[in-house]
């Protein structure tokens, strides 16, 4: 975990994510300044007494919403009005909303606190209201406004890390991947540049603030002695207006430098540049830029994107965007991204008209789901194994897809769906009330996606109906390593894991394609190394796959991952 290794491994990604982060911060700040400064001026000068508290109140309320919740609200609201729910746009909206208040408040108070005598004198000398604003109020308020901008910028850099959740990119990507995979390297690779950015930008803005403050009201040279004789050195000084224009120009150039690379030149020149590709089936189709969107876990685990990329020699034009698993399918369906990672059992693949690309070179190991239980828990509770094994080979992929769909898209409760299924399968008597358990507590874990929560609920329901044990639901944990770590430490008694994940992610072994072989290895190794037991597989193979919109995949003639890699290489 030394720094030079982090830089050599992740240097390229750090640079790119830092760039994205800067872009987000700059864009958000420019928009926020463009809104908040004029608004603050209007509020400070309005005669309507009710206005300022109203607007400031509203901005204040936005500020009290936790930043994570604000981002979530924007995604939900954007989904309702069919605006893009992922990517830079919703991220920017959240950042701008968050950045508004400090600038607004400081502009308002900066102007309000100007000595009324100054205003009166200016009026008495015959300045128009506009001249008073530009020559008296703004110069005197400038330091305060700049301070507001500084606070906002530092906040924005912090909040921007959360934008990674909705595919806006930035250093948050690295941080989330670090969390998902419990990797200190990635965590540091995301955190250090973010902290450094905050420090550097804060320092620069503080310098700018000093430079822009009119000399007469600068704190450091305020009280120079008034000795009559000693003449003041004539230094070539720049008027504040010139400085302001110069500063804006510099910011403008930096912004331009940040924004230019984001412009889709290829897309804009598509008219002239009729690039074509010959597909595997021999057709000639226009070359399109394909954008990939993967969740943090897929991006970071060895049997996810990093391995897939090498195995198929897959090279997207732009690094894949990181998306929350909940948003991925919708983003693909709406065309915000083209290629996503998907779980074979996810109901939304069919529902959103997506097509799974065939893993023609058998890269993904099988991911058969089975409960993993602590050996000591099994020993302590006779019959526990049999109850949990009631589900053995009990769920088919298609059934799981449907269950997932009911929760993800039809808004049913995971518990209700699980109960329904178990009842239908005759594993629970219809209408039976689970007896009030009196036995030991069993901690049942689950990772933070729908299928895991449904399966976790099933385990709990079986325990409740067939034993007197009292399951404790811990069903929304941060990911594989979080669940596994908790199980190993004894904080969990069991959770449903996938064989492939156990092999590659936890045991750190090379992927193997034979399902039985994989199961045997993980069962043996887990027992020996961790004193954990794999129970019987429950039937579903929730392998990772790549998915695309059916329409696009057909049009481009992409059926397998090899086709995709081929297409991208053209």
């Amino acid at each position, binding site marked *: 975990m030394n720094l030079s290794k982090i830089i050599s491994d992740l240097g390229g990604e750090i640079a790119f994510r830092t760039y994205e982060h800067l872009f987000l911060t700059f864009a958000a700040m420019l928009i926020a300044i463009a809104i908040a400064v004029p608004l603050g001026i209007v509020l400070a000068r309005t005669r309507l007494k009710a206005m300022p508290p109203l607007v400031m109140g509203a901005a204040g309320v936005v500020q009290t919403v936790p930043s994570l919740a604000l981002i979530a609200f924007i995604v939900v609201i954007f989904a309702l009005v069919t605006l893009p729910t992922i990517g830079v746009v919703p991220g920017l909206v959240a950042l701008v909303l968050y950045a508004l208040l400090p600038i607004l408040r400081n502009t308002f108070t900066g102007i309000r606190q100007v000595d009324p005598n100054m205003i009166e004198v200016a009026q*008495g000398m015959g300045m128009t209201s506009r001249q008073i604003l530009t020559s008296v109020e703004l110069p005197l308020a400038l330091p305060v406004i700049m301070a507001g901008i500084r606070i906002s910028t530092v906040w924005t850099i912090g909040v921007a890390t959360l934008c990674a959740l909705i595919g806006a990119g930035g250093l948050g990507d690295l941080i989330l991947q670090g969390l998902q995979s419990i990797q200190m390297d990635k965590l540091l690779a995301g955190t250090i540049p973010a902290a450094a950015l905050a420090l550097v930008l804060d320092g620069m803005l503080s310098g700018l603030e000093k430079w822009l403050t009119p000399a*007469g009201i600068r704190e450091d040279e305020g009280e120079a002695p*008034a000795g009559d004789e000693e003449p003041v050195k004539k230094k070539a000084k720049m008027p*504040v207006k010139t400085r302001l224009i110069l500063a804006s120009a510099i910011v403008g150039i930096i912004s331009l430098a940040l924004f230019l690379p984001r412009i889709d030149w290829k897309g804009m020149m598509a008219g002239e540049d009729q690039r074509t590709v010959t597909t595997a089936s021999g057709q000639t189709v226009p070359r399109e830029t394909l954008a990939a969107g993967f969740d943090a876990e897929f991006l970071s685990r060895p049997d996810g994107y990093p391995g897939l990329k090498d195995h198929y020699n897959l090279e997207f034009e732009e690094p894949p965007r990181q998306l929350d698993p909940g948003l991925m399918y919708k983003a693909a369906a709406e065309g915000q991204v083209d290629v996503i990672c998907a779980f074979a059992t996810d109901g939304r693949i069919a529902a959103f008209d997506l097509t799974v690309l065939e893993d023609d070179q058998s890269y993904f190991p099988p991911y058969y789901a089975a409960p993993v239980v602590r050996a000591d828990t099994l020993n302590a509770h006779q019959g526990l194994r049999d109850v949990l094994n009631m589900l053995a080979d009990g769920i088919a992929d298609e059934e799981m897809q449907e269950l997932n769909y009911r929760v993800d898209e039809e808004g049913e409760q995971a518990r209700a769906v699980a109960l329904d299924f178990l009842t239908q399968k005759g594993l629970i008597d219809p209408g039976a009330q689970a007896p009030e358990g009196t036995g030991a507590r069993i901690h049942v874990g689950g990772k933070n996606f729908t299928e895991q929560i449904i399966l976790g609920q099933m385990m709990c329901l079986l325990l409740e109906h067939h034993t007197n044990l009292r399951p404790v639901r811990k069903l929304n944990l941060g990911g594989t390593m979080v669940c596994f770590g908790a199980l190993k430490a004894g904080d969990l008694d069991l959770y449903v894991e996938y064989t492939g994940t156990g092999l590659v992610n936890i045991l750190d072994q090379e992927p193997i394609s034979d399902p039985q072989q994989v199961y045997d290895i993980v069962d043996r190794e887990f027992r020996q190394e961790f004193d954990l037991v794999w129970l019987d597989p429950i039937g579903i193979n929730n392998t990772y796959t790549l998915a695309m919109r059916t329409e696009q995949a057909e049009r481009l003639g992409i059926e397998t991952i090899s086709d995709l890699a081929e297409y991208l290489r053209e």
Partner: protein
Amino acid sequence: MITIEEVSKTFPDGTEAVKDLSLEIEEGETVVLLGTSGSGKTTTMKMVNRLIEPTSGRISVDGQDIMDQDPVQLRRHIGYAIQSIGLFPHMTLGENISVVPQLLGWDQPRTDDHVDQLLNMVQLEPEVYRDRFPSQLSGGQRQRVGVARSLAGDPPVVLMDEPFGALDPITREQLQNEFLELEDEIKKTVVFVTHDVFEAVKMGDRIALLDAGELQQLSSPAELVDNPANEFVSQFLGQQRFQLALVTRTLEFLLDKGIVERTDEELPDGPSLSRHDSLIQALDRFKTTGETVLPIRGGGRAIGELSKKKLLSIIAEVLGESGEESQ
């Protein structure tokens, strides 16, 4: 030059700051608005440049009703200095003084010359002070700049609201004297607000004494001191009347009253007194010249003769009136 006719001002909260005020100010004249705090001096002054609009009545400047003029244009032609100086802290002295000329559209060389001229006028060396900021000046220097700024753009009318307030007595007197000399040169129409009766007597050609928004007396300083128009004026002057008399009473008055004998002789070489000198100024002449007897000059002739001894007894008598009265 400025005509105020039956002007009243009632603020929205019901305060009657000025009541039925009529006042005419001649061109080149300095009229002092005098009164206690809250008597309506500032309000009256601000109505002249429309910083406050009168509730009723008419004000005209140079024969033109101010309500018919664009307030911004009006103000650019009326100099303005306020109670708290009000220099812009973010501008150099040069920039502060340039504001009005620039609003008037003067070109840069003309403005620069004007700034230097005004700084010289208020005894601040342009080379040294032009590029300083207000925070780098002493209080007295700031007041000077405030005065200079109010004269920028050569306005025919200047409004000054306690321009020498908050200064030590010595600096204050120095500034008053400088302004009086300046006034002799530039001959502006000045509305000068103060609550200090000595300052009023010293600066004003005429004094308008206000109380609770009402005009109590409008007269020359000597008239005000010698003939208070009503009980309020007497009370306002109070014990200070007698000290004031030393300032307002001139040698001419002594000649007229026969206290000093009037003659008509050749004016000898050497120091002399002017018939316009006040008693205090005469005493000062004796001190600075070291003489014991001085001729009083008038029209190039010696029209009387005053000894230091006689002057002191006259002064003692003037001050003595106060002693008698208070018994």
